């Protein structure tokens, strides 16, 4: 019976047709009045359904249907609504952006007058740092690892791959100056695209160092990380080097050379089509098998996913050379903080589904900790989360920089690049846990995995912190 249903269903109309049917009903004033009557939960579920539907249409290239779905979502989604409404708003914007990329001229024209204020970007980063504990935990763990690795060292050189937040190093300066053996001579090389940020950082840090009488020097390097000339870092012999990378490495995975790169930005029509056919033809069992093969959480072994191979052979050239360059500096310690989600699937749907979960957790976290009317929250959600979502969903190839991957992958990758894992210390984790507890929110969780720390919201891992040394 079940089979009959499935077979009989294949020929039935799409849900969107149903919707359009409804719009013709005479007793409906506006196209979808019933939408507004939905309660929050129903609305949320419906939004999910619509999002998936729309994404599927986008992936298949059926833009008309996608458009209808977008229209419906727009009735429900809102950046200042509840969690699901907000998420839907950003996801649909991303999907719409993706569709629009099929008309490059149109896309460029619409984006040509966009003004990106550096001050706003800086503000948003600051807000993210302050509203959520993720970065703070990463900093605590990083600093503790640095302190422990640099025991006994007189000359310490730290390279910060994204020197945006002085608080991290202020804390380190304070900790180092209180060292029983006396403070080391500390040099921090900060890399950032914007000179103003580095200036501010330099000022703040030297001020702190002078206050505590710690010999200190800040070297600003104004550069995009991908264009970084490692020579400019001026690493000297005789000094102990530590590298801190907070959410920076994943952008090196971006490249144009993807094995199954879809020509159109709309996604893999063929692949999804094939799956559809198989889905319809197979019985449940084999379908189950098919699905067993295609898992999320970064373990998808399907051949069309670049994330399937242990280390994607493509897109990792930049990564390999960068890691090599770092390895060549012989750092005593390298602490890597990354998002712990698989947002680097090769198909749109993979990425959409994974990111739905991850950002659901982030938006839940945001909802639980910040007021709905907070403008700061809105800014972080729009300019940070929303932009990440847009990059994950709408972009492909070298443009898609937010290539988050699971911790396992990073461990593999760093290991292959010649780094040995240094387990994060118990003391550091204790610090971090206390910090989280200070937030008085049960949702934040921290767990240890192979010597690395994963910061979660409820059950969902969000960020991972791991420490490495140069293995010769």
């Amino acid at each position, binding site marked *: 019976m079940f089979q009959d249903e499935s077979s009989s269903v294949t020929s039935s109309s799409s849900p969107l047709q149903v919707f359009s049917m409804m719009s013709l009903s005479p007793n409906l004033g506006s196209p979808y009045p019933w939408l507004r009557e939905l309660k929050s939960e*129903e609305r949320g579920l419906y939004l999910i359904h619509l999002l998936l539907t729309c994404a599927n249409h986008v992936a298949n290239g059926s833009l008309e249907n996608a458009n209808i779905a977008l229209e419906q979502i727009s009735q429900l989604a809102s950046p200042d609504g509840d*969690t699901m409404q907000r998420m839907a708003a950003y996801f649909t914007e991303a999907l719409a952006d993706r569709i629009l990329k099929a008309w490059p001229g149109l896309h460029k024209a619409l984006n040509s007058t966009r003004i990106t204020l550096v001050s706003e970007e800086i503000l948003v980063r600051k807000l993210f740092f302050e509203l959520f504990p993720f970065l703070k935990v990463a900093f605590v763990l990083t600093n503790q690892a640095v302190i422990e690795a640099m025991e006994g060292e007189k000359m310490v050189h730290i390279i910060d791959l994204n020197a945006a937040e002085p608080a991290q190093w202020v804390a380190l300066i304070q900790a180092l100056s209180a060292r029983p053996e006396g403070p080391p001579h500390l040099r921090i090389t900060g890399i950032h695209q914007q000179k103003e940020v580095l200036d501010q950082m330099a000022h703040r840090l030297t001020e702190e160092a002078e206050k505590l009488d710690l010999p200190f020097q800040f070297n600003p390097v104004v550069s995009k990380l991908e264009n970084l000339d490692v020579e400019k870092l001026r690493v000297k012999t005789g000094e102990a080097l530590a590298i801190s990378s907070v959410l920076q490495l994943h952008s090196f995975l971006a490249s144009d050379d993807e094995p199954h790169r879809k020509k159109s930005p709309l996604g893999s029509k063929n692949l999804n089509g094939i799956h559809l056919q198989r889905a319809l033809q197979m019985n449940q069992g084999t379908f189950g098998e098919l699905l067993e093969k295609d898992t999320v959480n970064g373990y998808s072994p399907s051949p069309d996913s670049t994330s399937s191979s242990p280390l994607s052979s493509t897109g990792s050239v930049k990564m390999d050379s960068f890691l090599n360059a770092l390895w060549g500096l012989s750092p005593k310690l390298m602490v890597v903080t990354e998002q712990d989600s698989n947002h680097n699937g090769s198909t749109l749907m993979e990425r959409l589904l994974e990111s739905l979960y991850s950002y659901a957790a982030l938006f839940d976290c945001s909802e639980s900790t910040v007021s709905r009317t907070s403008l700061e929250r809105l800014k972080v959600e729009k300019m940070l989360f929303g932009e990440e979502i847009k990059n994950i969903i709408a972009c492909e190839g070298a443009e898609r920089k937010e290539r988050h991957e699971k911790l396992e992958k990073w461990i593999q990758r760093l290991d292959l690049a010649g780094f040995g894992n240094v387990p994060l210390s118990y003391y550091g984790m204790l610090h971090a846990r206390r910090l989280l507890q200070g937030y008085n929110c049960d949702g934040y969780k921290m767990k240890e995995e192979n010597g690395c720390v994963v910061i979660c919201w409820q059950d969902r891992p969000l960020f991972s912190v791991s420490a490495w040394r140069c293995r010769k």
Partner: protein
Amino acid sequence: MSGEAFSIPSSALIGGFIQDQNNANPNPRANPNPVKKKRNLPGTPDPDAEVIALSPKTLMATNRFVCEICKKGFQRDQNLQLHRRGHNLPWKLRQRTNKEVRKKVYICPEKTCVHHDPCRALGDLTGIKKHYSRKHGEKKWKCEKCSKKYAVQSDWKAHSKTCGTREYKCDCGTLFSRKDSFITHRAFCDALAEESARLTSVAPTTLNFRNDAMNLPHGFTGNGIPQFPSGFPQDFPGMPAAGLPDMVQMAPANLFGSSSHFPGFENSVATSSNPNLSLSPLPQGLKEEGFYSDSQNEQSNPTASPMSATALLQKAAQMGSTRSNPSFFGNSFGVMSSASSSSPTATNFMASSSNVSMSATASNNLDKLMLQTGGKQGDPSQLNIHPGSNSFDQSLTRDFLGMSNARPFLPQELVKYASVGSTMGLSQFTSSNH
């Protein structure tokens, strides 16, 4: 050979020690050779020394020492002596003619230079040559790394060794190779005194991450409002209202109707007649079929707060299990990830969806639901069974894993899955939260 000599007291002979009748040292106070030659300040010569003034040409001549016999020039006196031996000179000339040589000091030929004054003469010929080059000469040597130019080759070499290996840099941009000079400079540097009050209006938090000073700004602790996602029994109406600053704006408690059951909307389904709700051709049918999962499930997890997005996703995934066509959502269960505490069903739901053409199957399900308006209670009725076991997910896992044996879904299995409902997702929440 000597170039033009300026008339300065005493002879102006340069060159080797050829002259026999050298100026007998009128001054008996020639320096005894000290054990360690004390270095005077530059330009404070021994008052009894002989001052020699050379022309620029002579000064810069590379081959000062000239053999009088063949006029061959040498840079060093020793080399000249060696050369002279070859001329088979009479014995006496080979000797150093005078035991004692009066100390010579040199003045810079450049009139404007401070070392032009005999009182500030320099004691070393090499020194005066270098001085003259550095100050008044042309800089012919250029550092490769930076753009610094040097007139004296040894200066250039010395610089090249340390160029780029500088230790210190002040904020104003000056570089220092020495710590003391760096520190001294910094103490007086203007750049540090500037207050840069640009950029963000957000006051930077000076968080001390040490455990002894967990200075979380007050506002943050205020923000740590535990709004438990819907489904936490303990929190309803659980608005952590009082006393916390930035209150989380909880959705109105009556969102889900007056019931404190979760999912509250079930009651609204039952109580409110909302013809506009859901798809218009079959609003009732939709509800009855538990489009949003089984309405009969009385797992009373009280909630009036809106469901978290995560819970919604999980629920959406489980909704697939309630459908007669599990190929939509239900297949998700075929892919249970390794017993992670994260909601497997939701995960798998998404997994399956990624590979299933959502539109097709979704439409299938949706259509089916629509077709099953009212009367046709085939599957839906079965779906509305409620085992309500919290261990459902595990059983679900097992069963679906059994799916790989190519067994089609049987109605009775559907029953089991149907009971999942929304509570299952929440039970996962509750179980994993403490």
